[in-house]
């Protein structure tokens, strides 16, 4: 029987502290599959390529249309979304690995909470709560809205951190995503009112100055966000802010 098969090599790890190992799987081919649907086949029938029964591979997923950012993993050496990784476009064997920049929970599932912590650190929000009605904010010019819309596509997927040579266990760098989000809220006419607070947070160890300009982030971003433009724009804001802080205040 010469049934077409999909050859999968998965880097697995049973727990955060366990030793990683690889396991191979052979999945019957169907047209139009993606990495998620192949992993679902493994989940339905957790038998490895040697025919041994094994535990199903663990991964995260949610929207299945590349807007949630949950299914990020390293596919054939490149960090990307598993849902938009179509089997017909991938070279076989397909190698799946977790994004090892993040702490591993199990198999392909990682803990991306450092990204949420970074968003909190750079105050990536617009404070509008008060004890009284603050009324309407300023209008957003259309051109600004278009720029902001591109930045707002960030889904905190973590791909920009995974591909960055400066984001690793030796370095406190927060990565491109939170810097770009700070730019988004500094762009917004209401958010701009708290611009200095975000810039101040970005001056700390691990902030915007720790970028080494390898520019992998902008190449890898699945949403095509101009991340390097965001970093350079924040660098400009930091230059202006620091001079003002030194000479004026």
């Amino acid at each position, binding site marked *: 029987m010469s049934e077409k098969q999909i050859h999968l090599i998965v880097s697995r790890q049973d727990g955060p502290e366990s030793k990683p190992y690889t396991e191979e799987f052979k999945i019957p081919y169907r047209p139009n599959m993606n990495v998620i649907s192949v992993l679902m086949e493994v989940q339905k029938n957790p038998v490895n390529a040697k025919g041994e029964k094994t535990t199903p591979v663990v991964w995260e997923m949610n929207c299945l249309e590349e807007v949630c950012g949950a299914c990020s993993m390293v596919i054939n050496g490149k960090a990307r979304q598993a849902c938009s990784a179509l089997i017909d476009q991938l070279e076989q064997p397909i190698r799946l690995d977790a994004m090892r920049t993040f702490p591993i929970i199990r198999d392909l599932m990682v803990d991306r909470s450092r990204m949420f912590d970074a968003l909190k650190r750079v105050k990536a929000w617009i404070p509008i709560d008060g004890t009284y009605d603050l009324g309407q904010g300023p209008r957003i010019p259309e051109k600004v809205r278009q720029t902001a819309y591109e930045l707002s596509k960030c889904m905190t997927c973590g791909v920009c951190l995974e591909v960055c040579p400066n984001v690793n266990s030796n370095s406190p760098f927060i990565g491109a995503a939170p810097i770009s989000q700070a730019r988004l809220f500094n762009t917004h006419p209401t958010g701009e009112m708290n611009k200095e607070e975000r810039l101040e947070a970005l001056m700390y160890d691990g902030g915007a100055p*720790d970028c*080494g*300009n*390898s*520019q992998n982030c902008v190449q890898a971003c699945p949403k095509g966000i*101009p991340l390097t*433009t965001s970093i350079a724009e924040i660098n400009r804001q*930091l230059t202006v802010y620091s001079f003002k802080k030194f000479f004026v205040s």
Partner: protein
Amino acid sequence: MATSHFFNRRLHSLLGIIPVGAFLLVHLTVNYMATRGPESFNSAAHFMESLPYLAVLEWVLIFLPLLYHAIYGLYVAFQADYGNVTNYGYFRNFMFMLQRITGVITLIFLGWHIWETRVQMAFGEELNFEMMTNILSNTGMMIFYIVGVVSAIFHFSNGMWSFLVSWGITIGPRSQRLSSYFWMLVFVLVSIIAVSALFAFVNPEYIVTIG
């Protein structure tokens, strides 16, 4: 705390251009005088030595900024993870790696070069065309000098590119791309100047004149 980290980083970036990068260009220009013969080089070198309050100029404009840039640069270079260049072999990622490698090569080269020239001069040896001829007639040393000098020029040129990004001057992709072309052109032209100066020191025509 926030300001000091930011300040240290920006200072590292600035010192690489002014004064260290500027001195590199001055130094290479003096070297280039060697292509006009031993006398031209010796008088240019002598002019540099005869500057007033030389020790202050050397320490404030060269040694201290260079030491700061080197030590902080090593700290930065060892924070990066270079494993990902194989998976993400993009042009700028490759330049990112080269910037750090050439920085370390330049540091090793400078350590040796300063020992061999400026420190020996402090011990009483005369720094002139002949001294360089003696060093560079050794093929191994010539290769070491070419690698060191070209690394320094690459580190300067590519460093100028990233300086413009880090200070928020070239922001968009178009200006950054044009800046890449410009600084790579600078790298090639300055390298030609520097390497032709190195070869001038071992030009048989001049070796005869210095006897």
